[in-house]
């Protein structure tokens, strides 16, 4: 059932601070919208309709506090990319696959290496060749690991990164430093359909395409030395950042459950202003099924990144003689999770949707591993290809249910990026001249990920900090890119 879609423009926004803007409720909005942005980032939104999506999300049954948008917001499906919304589980609050996105538990993993930049630079070309060959990417099947049986795939859906670690493809720190210790509880593989399994079976340990990547980076600047030390980072250190998710399996889970929810919404008396906002109460049978499938797909994503980390370590060992690259952190930016947060002075059980937004728990959060609890959760914020990425840390008290941006955020369509660029070969050469070795399967589509197609990551990070979402810890610059 469809309700009327909202129209909204930046002229409706009221500045609460230079980094926090309010969209007062109108139409069917149950709560305000809140956008974290600078005036420049707001201007960059143009007419991409993402603000209308913020308003549409504010109509979801059971939504509390506000419909939030991070500084890297841009147009998504149903939810904007960079959207955060929480619903009260025990007050009819809904869960919506549109609030998670197609790529369930898409996320970022950062590995630290024992090498300084100079030691790697001498053999960078060879290292990138080896990594590009070792890390499957692009369309279709292909992964570093093929499950031996249907039972093993089932185990991956239930246990996530614990499976590769148990098989010797990782160590205990890989689990300690992964969100949810590498495994989301309450996974229900029975809710993952045959096509989803089939798509996933051949893609374990693969990047995919689009904006996914594996980058070799150097810590260029440490902005918070004590916290950086706890995270395991120091200046001039070489790191590896991996960005990918649950591949075709997660996409199929999203497609299958959106379809089921569209059919079920009527029986729950729910109307939404956008078909991709299809949703059902968290506590309904359909809601529980989706959350079970979501957890299973998230476990698949963590296992995927674990196998890729193992491949990257093997590549370092082969070229540089050492493959001990401890995990700094692994965190998702497409997920819905049941969390307890304070709302109007009371602790409330919430279903927190983060779509293109990163969880950013502040110091003291019980969910964090012991060694991180005193400082807060690492937040990994990759820039666009060829620009800096940031490691931040969740700030107290935080905002938007402890959430932060997830990247630079696109500002230009893939079409426009291709039209305005100079072709993939020129872009690759330009990046090489800037000291960045790019390995891409196809130069044709490389300009789609050109830095000019994205917002300024420095500005996004600045707004995150000014809005109190997270604090900067370290800035990393890429020296090698394997494009998905």
């Amino acid at each position: 059932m469809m309700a009327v879609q909202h129209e909204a423009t930046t002229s409706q926004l009221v500045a609460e601070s230079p980094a926090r803007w309010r969209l007062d409720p109108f139409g069917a909005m149950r709560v305000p919208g809140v956008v974290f942005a600078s005036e420049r980032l707001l201007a960059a939104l143009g007419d991409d309709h993402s603000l209308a999506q913020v308003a549409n999300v504010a109509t979801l049954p059971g939504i509390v506090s506000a419909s939030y948008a991070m500084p890297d917001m841009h147009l998504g499906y149903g939810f904007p990319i960079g959207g955060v919304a929480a619903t009260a589980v025990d007050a009819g609050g809904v869960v919506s696959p549109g609030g998670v996105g197609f790529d369930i538990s898409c996320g970022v993993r950062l590995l630290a290496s024992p090498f300084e930049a100079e030691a790697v630079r001498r053999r960078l070309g060879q290292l990138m060749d080896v990594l590009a060959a070792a890390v499957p990417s692009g369309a279709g099947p292909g992964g570093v690991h093929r499950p031996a049986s249907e039972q093993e795939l089932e185990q991956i859906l239930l246990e996530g990164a614990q499976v590769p670690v148990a098989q010797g493809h990782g160590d205990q720190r890989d689990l300690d430093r992964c969100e949810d210790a590498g495994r989301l509880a309450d996974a229900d593989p029975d809710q993952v359909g045959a096509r989803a399994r089939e798509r996933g079976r051949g893609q374990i340990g693969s990047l995919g395409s689009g904006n996914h990547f594996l980058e070799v980076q150097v810590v260029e600047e440490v902005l918070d030395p004590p916290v950086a030390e706890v995270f395991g980072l120091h200046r001039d250190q070489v790191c590896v950042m991996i960005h990918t998710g649950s591949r075709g399996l997660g996409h199929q889970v999203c497609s299958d459950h959106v379809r089921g929810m569209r059919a079920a919404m009527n029986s729950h008396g729910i109307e939404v202003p956008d078909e991709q906002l299809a949703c059902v109460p968290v506590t309904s049978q359909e809601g529980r099924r989706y959350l079970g499938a979501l957890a299973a797909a998230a476990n698949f994503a963590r296992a995927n990144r674990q196998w890729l980390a193992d491949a990257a370590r093997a590549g370092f060992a082969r070229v540089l003689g050492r493959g001990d690259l401890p995990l700094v952190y692994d965190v998702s930016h497409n997920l819905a999770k049941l969390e307890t947060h304070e709302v109007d002075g009371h602790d409330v059980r919430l279903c927190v949707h983060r779509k293109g937004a990163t969880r950013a728990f502040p110091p003291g959060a019980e969910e964090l591993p012991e060694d991180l609890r005193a400082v807060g959760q690492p937040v990994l914020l990759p820039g666009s290809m060829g620009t800096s990425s940031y490691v931040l840390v969740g700030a107290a008290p935080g905002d938007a249910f402890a959430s932060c941006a997830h990247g630079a955020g696109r500002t230009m369509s893939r079409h426009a990026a291709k039209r305005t660029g100079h072709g993939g070969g020129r872009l690759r050469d330009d990046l090489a001249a800037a000291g960045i070795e790019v390995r891409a399967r196809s130069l044709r589509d490389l300009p789609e990920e050109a830095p000019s197609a994205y917002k300024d990551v420095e500005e996004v990070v600045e707004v995150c900090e000014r809005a109190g979402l997270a604090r900067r810890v370290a800035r990393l610059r890429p020296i090698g890119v394997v494009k998905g």
Partner: protein
Amino acid sequence: MTADAADRGHRTVAHTADQIVEAWGPTREACLEEAAMGLVETFADPSGVGWCDHAEVVLTGSDEQLLVDLLEEIVYRLDTDRGVPVRVRVRPRAEGVRADLWLTDRRRLGGLGVAPKGVAYSQLDFGPDPVGLWRCSVTVDV
């Protein structure tokens, strides 16, 4: 833009992060055929590539559901190495449609572009326009 007759064709349109496929044709089935090839052309150039396999897919549901399901079939086949269509024919059935897909191996298509991974219901349009030409617009997650 491709048009093998004046009143049918397809093209891709800019979207901030993903791809929008637009297609049109004199009938619902012609429009579905164009949309299918429009999707393929977001990641491959099938022109001049022969087929080596054939599949038949029966689809039911609303017009919009037929469109989503046909495109999802292509995404599924790409992800599981079950071929990429180089030609599509869609015929009406009492309920829904039957689609014939003439398929090639993805390795015969050269370097593939950014892969489609899902079909969105957001901003999905499919139906006849005021002059009776069937038109669709569908956003594909990449």
